[in-house]
């Protein structure tokens, strides 16, 4: 079993006397990524602040390796755990490179002067997060996203065993979000850094984490692998959102469906319906969809957005019962859109629906606007 670099025992965290979360028992191994997820205000930051000693635990203990957190000197802790929290960093006359250099702080001597070795580490980190082009700019003059990357470079060049990040992807555009996740993955696998962070982006959390800690209502709700967490509608429950708002396979979100009786019936399947659903949703037109297999790529979207949905079990041909159901709903709609381009054995009943729609003169072809 891999070496455990950080663990907590019956840890309770909070501010002063105010308890935020109690009963945290987690352990993080070398080279693994632990992500904290949960609704706003659940106390993710409080946990992170406690394990990097910004806050003292109300109860319980945090262990860094085998040592108790409170017994480490400031310098020892700084060397083995680098933290990047959400507090604003202000500077005066500092280039981005100077800010990165501060990352080497615990390794420097009495006056904080960097050795050649330190400088190499700084340049390496600058390269790693791709900020060479802004390294000589004033830290105050760069954008929030660039600033975030500079601070991440600072944390990386400290070469900690444990990297603690509070919402590190905030302010980053998709390119740098992806790059950040790649960097974290690489740090974990190459340098065996343990990474503990909080994320709001569930899609990223699902892809990058080895373990997830879900926090809700003053306690850790679940602790497990992404596969264990992204299942059975648990996340919708964690965030208190409507069923169907979150696709568990992709961690993506869907907006609330348009209410009312369906006006349009969409014959869908195979993925081509997704753009139609989105457009109808955008125009605020309530719609029904069918018949869609439950393993169809567009099923999660249709499930989230359609007022009524007729679905069929995976790998089964469409049953007569479901066909009748779809036909009935379609009859009550004003118009029909067919998004399916070709029909096969499994969805030949959909072709029948199309024929019926044509007969009733309800079929809308080509682009639609109303």
């Amino acid at each position, binding site marked *: 079993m891999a070496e455990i670099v950080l663990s907590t025992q019956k840890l309770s965290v909070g501010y002063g006397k105010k308890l935020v979360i109690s009963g945290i028992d987690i352990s993080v191994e070398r080279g693994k990524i632990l992500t904290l997820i949960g609704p706003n205000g659940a106390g993710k930051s409080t946990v992170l602040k406690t394990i990097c000693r910004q806050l003292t635990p109300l109860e319980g203990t945090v262990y860094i390796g085998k040592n108790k957190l409170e017994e480490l000197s400031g310098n020892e802790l700084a060397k083995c755990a680098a933290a990047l929290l959400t507090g604003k960093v202000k500077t005066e006359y500092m280039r981005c490179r100077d800010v990165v250099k501060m990352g080497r702080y615990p390794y*420097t001597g009495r006056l*904080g002067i960097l050795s050649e070795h330190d400088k190499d580490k700084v340049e390496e980190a600058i390269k790693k997060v791709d900020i060479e082009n802004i390294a000589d700019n004033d830290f105050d003059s760069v954008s929030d996203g660039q600033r975030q990357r500079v601070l991440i470079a600072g944390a990386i060049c400290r070469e900690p065993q444990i990297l603690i990040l509070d919402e590190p992807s905030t302010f980053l555009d998709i390119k740098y979000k992806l790059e950040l996740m790649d960097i974290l993955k690489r740090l974990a696998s190459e340098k065996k850094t343990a990474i503990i962070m909080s994320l709001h982006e569930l899609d990223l959390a699902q892809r990058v984490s080895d373990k997830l800690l879900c926090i809700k209502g003053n306690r850790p709700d679940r602790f497990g692998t992404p596969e264990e967490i992204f299942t059975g509608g648990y996340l919708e429950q964690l965030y208190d959102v409507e069923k169907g708002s979150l696709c568990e396979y992709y961690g993506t979100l869907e907006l609330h469906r348009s209410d009312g009786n369906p006006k349009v019936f969409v014959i869908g399947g195979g993925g081509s319906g997704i753009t139609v659903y989105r457009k109808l949703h955008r125009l605020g037109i309530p719609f029904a969809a069918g018949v869609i297999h439950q393993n169809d790529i567009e099923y999660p979207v249709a499930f989230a957005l359609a007022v009524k949905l007729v679905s069929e079990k995976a790998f089964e041909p469409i049953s007569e019962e479901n066909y009748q159901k779809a036909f009935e709903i379609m009859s009550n709609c004003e118009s029909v859109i067919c998004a399916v381009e070709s029909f096969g054995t499994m969805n030949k009943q959909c072709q029948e629906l199309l024929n019926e729609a044509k007969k009733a003169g309800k079929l809308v072809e080509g682009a639609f606007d109303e």
Partner: protein
Amino acid sequence: MDSRVKRITIGYTILIVLLIVLVILNICVGSADILPNRLWKAIRFPENDKVAYNIVFGLRIPRTFAAVILGGALAVAGFLLQNFFANPIAGPYILGISSGAKLTVAMLMVISLSKGFAANSAEMVIAAFVGSLISMGLILLISAKVQRMSVLIVCGVMIGYICSSVTDLVVNLSDDSNIVNLHNWSMGSFSGITMSDVLTATCIIIPACFCAFMLSKPMSAYQLGEEYAQNSGVHIKAFRITLILLSSLLAACVTAFAGPVSFVGVAVPHLIKSIFRTAKPVITLPSSFLGGAVFCLFCDLITRTLFAPTELSISTVTSIFGAPVVIYMLLNRERLKENG
């Protein structure tokens, strides 16, 4: 050479040259001008030119060195306070710390005069230190309550006013012929400082500044915010207490010997930082000391020579040069805020 290193080297060279030139000017120029060759002769053969010797060694050298040491101390005290409060406008005078020290020193003087003994310089420094710590305590209490730095500054100025008013009251209530002396001191002046006072001040200020310099490293992390410093391994509590004690001690020491001297603590570190284009304490702390010394030498020269033989108070001159810098900084800050 790296342009930054070049800038710093040139900056230091200019400061040192200015310091030397101003020290010589301060010793030579005055109501009786003593040219360098006469000065040199007087130093070598004191018996031949007793007048020059007495002026130089009895008055000008102590005064000049007082300006160097105390000016440097003020700038360093200001630099420390600016770091502590993360506010470029903080300084011992603006936050009322000098005025607090002034009040306790005035009280000690009045009490000692009425009891018929003269307080020695060590006692004065202790009294000043107590006063500055009281003011500092008040400021810290306020800073725990308010987040806005401008409110803190206003409160500091108000504390300064209260202390000054009480000082005036105390000074006026006491009935003594020495009152004139006391009055001079309470306006701020480098005159009347003896060589032994300068030595006492040096013995306190140099070690204090050295300690402050040794705090350069944690200070540089603290400049990025308390959270950042803590993550870098700085023991925040100990660091903050040391910073408070050092800046109070430096401000107290200056006040005990020269009375309140305004704006040096705010203006000098700011000027130094903008000239050197860095806020790194390793570089800016020693240069602030030099800058403070140069600034005070220059201002003291003006107080003595502008309306000679009448002397101005040192704060009159330092305010004229220092206050505009503060106004400029305030405006600059507002502009930065507007830009985001």
